[in-house]
Every structure is written in structure tokens, then in C-alpha cells.
């Protein structure tokens, strides 16, 4: 058994924030994908993720059994406004009794009323996490494939008729990707365009 990866601090902060939406993505025995919102998901002290399942017969439960039995990956989507992360991992454990199971059940009853119930608590062991914010995704994409995929008519790229060649991108056309200014990238693209024209 290996230790769970250490999740980035911003992921841990997101997971601990009450308003964060959490989605568990699985695949079934037939390969069919399934997603389910599981906002009760939380990070445990050892870095694993845990969440309750109300029904053993839910698709998520079924898929998680399939995942732990046949070593299929599981993904957790974490979303709070502009901050989005994805954690991919393995189904580590299914708890149907014990202190953690009871804690999640008590929490469910406090949240949803005394008749709330859970069938199991599933524990996911994170293996990799990445920032899924659109800007971060674009930045990664650009880093790997600098000139592929981006439509050339995008405002940050295409020069309007009569636009000053030295003016650079028009005000408001600069975008932030992953917290970094991409003006240099745009300039690179401009230079490349010029080179191709010659």
C-alpha cells in the first residue's frame, strides 16, 4: 500500500470550503461513464478522499465496486467558481462500519434530518491532480502545442484592418492564463505570422 499523494494546498483549501461542488466520475463494468455530485466528500488526515454513498444499488456504488475489484481509476471534480481541479485516483476502501462510517452517517443526519441514511463510505486514494481552470488548461495546451488548435480569428490574435503593427494586442485582449501574462506568447505568434508571410 502506497501513501496517498500530497494534494496541492489550493486543492485542500477548496475541499474544505463549504461552497465547493464535488463530483465523482466513474465508469461501469460496460465502460459507460457516470458522474454524481457528492458534496459531502472530504479529505482525510492521511490525504485520501472520503464520501458517503446512500445506496449500494446506485451507479456510483456499483462503479466503485467495479473500480476496487478490477483496478479502474476514479476521478473527483472539484469546482468553486473560477477554481476547478480534477483529482484522479483509485478506490481504496469501502467502509460499512466503524468510526469513520459513523461520523459520516451522523453528519448526514445533522444535515438532512434524522431519517437520512448511508450504505457505505468510499475512500479514494489520489494519484494525480491537475488544475482544470479554463485558463490553466489553455496554458498547458499552449505550452505543449503552441500554435495548434487556437482559432486564428480570436481577438487576441487577429489584427483588425488598419491596426498599428507595433501597437500589440488591443486593450482588453490580453488574457490571463494560469496567472501568467500571455502577451509574450501572442508576440511569438505575431512574429511567426510575420515570418510565414515573408
Amino acid at each position, binding site marked *: 500500500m502506497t501513501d496517498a499523494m500530497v494534494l496541492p494546498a489550493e486543492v485542500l483549501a477548496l475541499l474544505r470550503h463549504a461552497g465547493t461542488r464535488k463530483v465523482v466520475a466513474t465508469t461501469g463494468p460496460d465502460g459507460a461513464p457516470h458522474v454524481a455530485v457528492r458534496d459531502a466528500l472530504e479529505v482525510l488526515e492521511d490525504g485520501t478522499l472520503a464520501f458517503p454513498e446512500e445506496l449500494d444499488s446506485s451507479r456510483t456504488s456499483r462503479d466503485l465496486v467495479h473500480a476496487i475489484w478490477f483496478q479502474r481509476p476514479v476521478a473527483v471534480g472539484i469546482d468553486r467558481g473560477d477554481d476547478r481541479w480534477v483529482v484522479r485516483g483509485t478506490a481504496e476502501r469501502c*467502509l*460499512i462500519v*466503524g468510526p469513520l462510517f*459513523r461520523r459520516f452517517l451522523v453528519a448526514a443526519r445533522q444535515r438532512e434530518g434524522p431519517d437520512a441514511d448511508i450504505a457505505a463510505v468510499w475512500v479514494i486514494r489520489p494519484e494525480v491532480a491537475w488544475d482544470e481552470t479554463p485558463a490553466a488548461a489553455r496554458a498547458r495546451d499552449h505550452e505543449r502545442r503552441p500554435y495548434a488548435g487556437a482559432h486564428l480569428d480570436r481577438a487576441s490574435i487577429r489584427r483588425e484592418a488598419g491596426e498599428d503593427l507595433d501597437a500589440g494586442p488591443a486593450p482588453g485582449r490580453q488574457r490571463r492564463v494560469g496567472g501568467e501574462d500571455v502577451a509574450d506568447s501572442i508576440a511569438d505568434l505575431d512574429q511567426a505570422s510575420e515570418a510565414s508571410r515573408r
Partner: protein
Amino acid sequence: MRVQRGRAVNSVRAAGVPRHAEKPTATLAGAPLAPTARAAPVAAEVVTLRDSAVWDAPFANVLMRRVMDHYVRQTWTSPEDVETYFRKNQFDPATTRIICWRDVAVGWLSLRWSADEVFVDHVHIHPAFQGRGIGSVVLRRVLAEARARGLATRLQVLRVNPAARLYMRLGFRVHAETVTHFSMEVPAPAASATGNGCRPGTGDAGPRELAAQYPDVPLFVILKMDVQRRGLRMTTAALDAVQGPEYNYGRSYVLYGQGEAAPRYAPGPLLLRDGTSVLALADAGGRNPYTVDRIDDRFVLFDGDAYVDDVDFTSRPAYYGKRTRRGVPMESIASARPQRLDINPYRFCHFWEGGNQCKYCAYFTDVKAQERCADGRVAREVDLEDVYDTVREALQEPGRFSQVMLTSGADYRGERTFDFEVDRHIATLQAIGRNFRTRRFASQLIGCAYDQTQLRRLHAETGLTAYCPDIEVWDARLFEWICPGKAKWPGRDGWIRSALDAVDIFGPGNVYTNAVAGVELARPHGFATEDEALASHVEGCEFFARHGIVYLSLVWIPWRGSQFANQAQPSLRFYVRLIRELRAIRKAHGLLARNDDYRHCGNHGDSDLERLEVAA
């Protein structure tokens, strides 16, 4: 060699052979079927074995004396010693099969099977049929089966008996000798290099190999069945770790195992990472058990020295250690599986009276140990208020139980057969039911074969939701042999009838029957091959499934204290093949074993497979 068939037969018949044993001996008397001395060796297929019965004793004892007298007198000169020899070697129908040549009884074979060997106590062939190769055919079959089960074959032979040469030809070698005897053996096949506890030469394999060969069956489920099959022992460190309040199950839980009070507190059921519980606590002795160790605050399962996986134990229920209003320890009233409360309101099985208990059963073998488990407060019949108090307290723990299961020793007494038992279950269920607002509560009764009136009472007067009359052994012949009490009260047809009637009352899918899988291979009367055993289960499951009844299998454990102690178990592959077959049949009939699933029971690999089913 002098042929004396007429005299031998006549002497047997003079000793009084019952009518239905006459056919083979009468045929033996008829000269046309009897071969002459030194005739061509017999074909193996005309040599068969049949079960023996007490009325075969005259034939067997006279034949043995006839065959062995000369060698015994050569070995011991004192008449007392000679008589002692024959007295000690009397025919025993429990271990003996009659050797037949074209359905003619020509000899007998006595075997004792244990965990690591088959011991050939006797093999005697009538002198008129010696030299035909009949003994060789029989012994080759014994050797083949022992090899298939990974066992050594051993025997003793008088030094003066020329049969020792035959044994040498068959591969036996002398491994010890005394003044009077040679001890000979064909060793067990070489030990497996995988250390997986399977029996080499059987085509068997360990859990990982089988998971690779049967990719639709998860390793977890195979592992669970293998842990059940081979047993579990705990290191001192692991045992130390379960003595505290988190895991300490007291001493009551071992009642499910060997009926022994453990020297230290035991944990509850083992938990695998997929949530499955495993009922395998007892150290099973010579079955190469798995080991649980404690490493870095984790419980770790080992197979020999090989790491298998991290595991856990079921946490101690909050009601353990508490007492009822009458002062009775609650854990003596109800024991806890991960999500199921088990109540046994009557701790005595009347089948044990007169030796009619099921031959694999070891429950109720140590009443004193049960008393020790409960501070001496266990009575044969549990008080209803103690039941009410215990259930009430158990339900205080959030989310701990989602089903109540009732079972007890069989009690056939009453105006109708089982009336006493039914009355007791109704009263107990009513006491439990006082704890619920709803009329029905998730519950299962593993009971005996009740008639329609009794079943209707159970349904109408209690909150019971599922009924389980366990057939245990589907094959009719083996049912009679293995479950003599059930065969008598009220008989196999009665058990089947009860399950069928219950479907009309409790509804399809709410009636269950369990089979102790593998016990149908027990020696000496069980099926000869695992394929035959498997076919029998398939037939039983198909039959019940057609009627809306869930037929489940569980792994047979030859408990100490049972009549089948020390019997060899089937291969792990047998269990893997079995659960696939049973699951497929139930699926085809739209049946799910929700009452006996991984959360509630933990005994059934085939219901574990249903975890991949999803609600529509």
C-alpha cells in the same frame, strides 16, 4: 491358489446376510460369473465400489479372516494375539466400501481420510478373485484421488504378507518398519512453490492465479473464500491490538467458530478493503491458514511470508459490555456482524440427540464454553425481555445494524413438527418488533422446514421479511447421509416443500436456502469429482430459482467437533467455478440475494458478485 468360492459364500450366507445384500453374494455363488484362477486380468471398468452397510459385516469379517489368517498366525503365535488382531480390525461400515467385480462383491476396502493423508486400513480380495488385478485397479484409484487432493497415501502391511510386493509395484515405499509391520507410503505431490496453500496436482491454483484465469471474478471474492477455506490465525501483535475497546468482541463471537472460549478476546469478522466481511476467525490448524499481523498500526494479511493486503476487523458494537435489566450480558443475547444483529433464542439442537446432527456441524458442541463466554448467564432458551433490551440498546448506535437475523438449534417437538420452535421464533420476533414503529422490519429467519400453517403464522404474527430453510445438501442420496436429522424431520421433500410454500407467503426473492458447498465431496460416500458436485449445485440452484427461491453457497469448513473433522476440502477453483454458476442462474431468473449480501452475512461469494448489479 486354491479356488474355494463355494465354501466362502456359503459360510457368509450361513452367517445371515440380509436380503438386499444377497444379490452380490448370490451371484458370487453362481459359478458362471466367477472367473477361474489365473484368468486374464479384469478390465478396470468392471471393478466398482459400493457403499457398505452393517449387514455387510459377516461377509467382510469372514473374508478378512480367510485372507489374513495365514499371515497373522505367521506373525503372532499366541492365539490371544491372533484374536486381538482380528478384533481390532473389525469391519467398520463408516469407512468401508465393498469391491465388486461385475456387481459381485469380491472384497472390501477401508480408507481413513484426513487433512494430509489417506490411510488404507484394509484392502481384501476374495482368494477366488486374487491375481486378476482387482486390487491394483482399486488401489490405483485411491492413489489417483489422493494425488488429486494433494495427499499422501499410507498403509501398513504385515512383513510376511506378499501383498507388500503389489504395493511396491504401485509405487509405495517403506518409510518405517517394526518387528511385525512395514509402514509404506506414496508421498503427497511436491509442495507448491507459490505458497498459496492450494493442493498441487489438483489443477488448483491460488487466488491470484484464479483471478487471472476467471477475469470476471474479483480477487477480493476469491481471497475471501480462500480465507474461509483455509482459516486465519493472528500473531501476538495482532491479537494484542484487538484487546482494546475498538475491536474487542469479547468471547462470544468464537461461538460461530469452534465453540471454544478463546484464551484472549477475539475480534469480530475480518473486513477486506472492498467492504466484504469474512467469517474465519478460528485457527484452523493443518489447513495452512492465513495470518493477520499488526504492522505500523495497520492489520496486514499474509499468506505464509507473502503480503496479501491490508485488512481490518469489524469494530466492537456499542452495546457489547452492557447488560439487560435482568443483568445478562447483551453480547450473550445477540452477536454482531458488520450490519447484522444475530440472535439465537434457543441454544440447543435436538438433532444432536441420537446422533442425528448434520455431519459438518460443530455448533452446540461445547455448552460449557458458551457459558464461559457469557459469564455463565447463557441459558438454553433466551429470555424475551433480554432480547428486547438488547435490540433496543443495539439500535442506539447510529447506522450499525440494517437487519436482524434469527436462528437456533432445531427443535422438532410440538403437536406439529417444529411447533415449539415456531412458537419460540414468533415470541422472539414479537419482542424484537416492539422496538420498531413499522409493522415489518428487515429480518431473516434461518429456520427449519415449517408447514404452511406455521409459515402463515410467522408472516401474520411477526414483522419477519425473509425466511430461509437451509437445504444444505441438494443431492437426495447425500442429503440422507449428511443431514440425518433433516432427513427425518420432516425429510428432504418436506424441506423443499417448505421453501416452495414460503414463496407464496413471503414473496419471490424473499425465501432463501443455503448449501454447504463442498460437503457433498466428503468421504466415503460423497461425489468422486468436483465436476459432479458442481453439477449437483447447478441442478439445485436451477430448481429453486425457477420457484423464486435464492439458492446460496457457503464454503464448507471441516470443524473440529463435527463428524467431518479432518476431511479434505475441495479446491479453491471449485468454489470459484461454483459462485460463477450460481450467480449466472440467479441472474437469469432475476433474483438477488439482498438479505444475504456482503453487508449482512459475508458468507457467500456468489452474492458478493451481485454488487455489480444496479437498481433500474
